[in-house]
């Protein structure tokens, strides 16, 4: 299992080959950190016996940016803009986990409309993340057209993100106590268009891949990880569900009102790369169901941020040409009309919120599995400790179990089926 220390080559390379015969030795190969199909800067130290992987050791840390340490030096509100950069393919989930943790420490809850918006953007984000996975895995395993289609549909969702948050990634849209601002009508309209279009497009992906002999050959029976192994190694998300375990934080420990939505937890029994493909395709369909329910609920107007002036961000924000910024009316209000508003703004922006001391752990279901936020406060204006339990980090521990004994070409399929994002692994 992955617990093993790096194994020594089984045959001493110093021993000369027998005359006229092949030397029976293994070869150590570094795959990565600069290898296009290791999804970023993942490095695998492979010991190969011909084409067979004898042992594998994943080495991470090349993208470590100290997000957790940085959070300790900024205000609680600024933490959102840090954690959104951890797993850059699922920014909304990182924001949600962090905000839910801080809100639990504060003892507040976002208003209903903000929760609907949070769920909707998370589910859209799940689709974009799965689309990137589908596109890049397709590319790695030879289905180049899938890469083009995947990114094409992702673009539609990124446009919706841009309309609502001003940015295509690193949104910082979810804030402590709610969301930055309501979704503009155009965003809602585009979301409905997307809902109309997407089921057909997912059908196209299935037409391209699900019965494609090459895709089946490359994925079926490859990178098998049994349910017992996955549970022991702490693997969560689609990889665990592909082994038949119906574990989904949205269902088991509902948050943000997920218990009121109608959706299914998708499982398969193959426990292989192909089963993970099927699970992710079905999850996109379930996400579309949830987005539809969210859009219906958005008919109810309401606040998107808590009313408490000691918690809520003081500014009225709106989308400008370079992302979210203060609205002109608000700048006029604090600069020309109200001294108290200016003082309040200054205090909130420089000093921020004081959070009562305590420790919480909040899990959310990210596209890659259970994303947990352990947040500790000492009662001050800055987090004392933010620990991100990133699903990619934990899932990568399973790589040796999945690839050892298999072919080196299947390592690519195994890594792809795990869908690790190194921004989240290394933080």
């Amino acid at each position, binding site marked *: 299992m992955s617990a093993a220390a790096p194994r020594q080559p089984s045959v001493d390379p110093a021993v000369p080959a027998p005359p006229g015969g092949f030397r029976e030795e293994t070869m150590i190969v570094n795959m990565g950190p600069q290898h296009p199909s290791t999804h970023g800067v993942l490095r695998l130290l492979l010991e190969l016996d011909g084409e067979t992987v004898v042992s594998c050791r994943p080495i991470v*840390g090349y993208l470590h940016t*100290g997000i957790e340490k940085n959070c300790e030096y900024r205000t609680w509100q600024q933490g959102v803009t840090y954690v959104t950069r951890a797993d850059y393919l699922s920014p909304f989930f990182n924001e949600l986990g962090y905000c839910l943790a801080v809100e639990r*420490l504060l003892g507040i809850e976002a208003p209903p409309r903000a929760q609907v918006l949070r769920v909707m953007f998370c589910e859209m984000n799940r689709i974009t993340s799965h689309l990137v996975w589908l596109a890049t895995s397709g590319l790695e395993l030879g289905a180049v057209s899938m890469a083009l289609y995947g990114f094409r549909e992702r673009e539609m969702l990124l446009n919706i993100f841009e309309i609502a948050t001003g940015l295509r990634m690193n949104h910082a849209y979810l804030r402590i106590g709610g969301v930055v601002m309501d979704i503009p009508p155009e965003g809602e309209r585009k979301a409905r268009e997307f809902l109309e279009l997407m089921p057909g497009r997912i059908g196209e992906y299935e037409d391209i891949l699900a019965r494609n002999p090459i895709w089946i050959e490359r994925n079926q029976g490859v990178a098998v990880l049994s349910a017992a192994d996955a549970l022991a190694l702490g693997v969560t998300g689609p990889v665990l569900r592909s082994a038949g375990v119906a574990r989904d934080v949205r269902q088991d420990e509902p948050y943000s009102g997920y218990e009121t939505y109608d959706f299914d937890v998708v499982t398969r029994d193959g426990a292989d790369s192909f089963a993970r493909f099927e699970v992710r395709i079905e999850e996109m369909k379930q996400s579309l169901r949830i987005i539809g329910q969210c859009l219906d609920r958005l008919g109810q107007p309401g606040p998107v941020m808590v009313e408490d002036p000691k918690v809520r961000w003081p500014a009225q924000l709106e989308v400008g040409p370079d992302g979210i910024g203060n609205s002109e009316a608000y700048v006029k209000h604090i600069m020309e009309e109200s001294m108290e508003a200016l003082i309040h703004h200054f205090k909130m922006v420089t000093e921020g919120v004081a959070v009562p001391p305590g420790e919480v752990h909040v899990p959310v279901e990210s596209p890659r599995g259970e994303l947990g936020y*352990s947040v500790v406060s000492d009662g001050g204006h800055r987090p004392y400790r933010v620990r991100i339990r990133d699903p990619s980090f*934990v899932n990568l521990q399973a790589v040796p179990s999945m690839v050892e004994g298999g072919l080196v070409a299947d390592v690519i399929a195994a890594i792809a089926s795990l869908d690790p994002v190194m921004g989240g692994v290394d933080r």
Partner: protein
Amino acid sequence: MRAEELAGLVRPRYPDVVVARGEATVVVDRSELHEAFVYLRDDPMLSLDSLSGVSATDWPGRTPRYWLAYDLYSMGHKHRLRLKVGLLEDDPHVPSVVSVYPTANWHERETFDFYGIVFDGHPDLLRILMPDGWKGHPLRKTEDLGGVNTRYKGAFIPPVDRRTT
């Protein structure tokens, strides 16, 4: 199971249990850590069979200085329990739980890397996120964030931990 009920089940054996914000936390001594994990995992009512994560906090000047928090989850009962253990500044050693929860491997390596807490019996206790030759343990509160002055519109802005505001 609700956190209060869970705390009630654990309390006879480990009396130091608190419930705050709907989360149950049990504090055990380092010497009984391994036994506690086996009990929490194997007791049919608790059945805390998966480890979500291991995290540490550093409180310089206090005794104990380090606190380790293990977030446990039960797949069957769908409840959570946090187990905490305090470690003294001059003896930051703790038994590894990799033999109970194999998933602890990388979590413990990360905590060792960031805080210098030594997990005795860990099969492969090497740095994981910092470079191999790194000096120090960066998430200790005694370590600086670091950084360089940045030039912005003609002025030099110091790194965030050396700003006066």
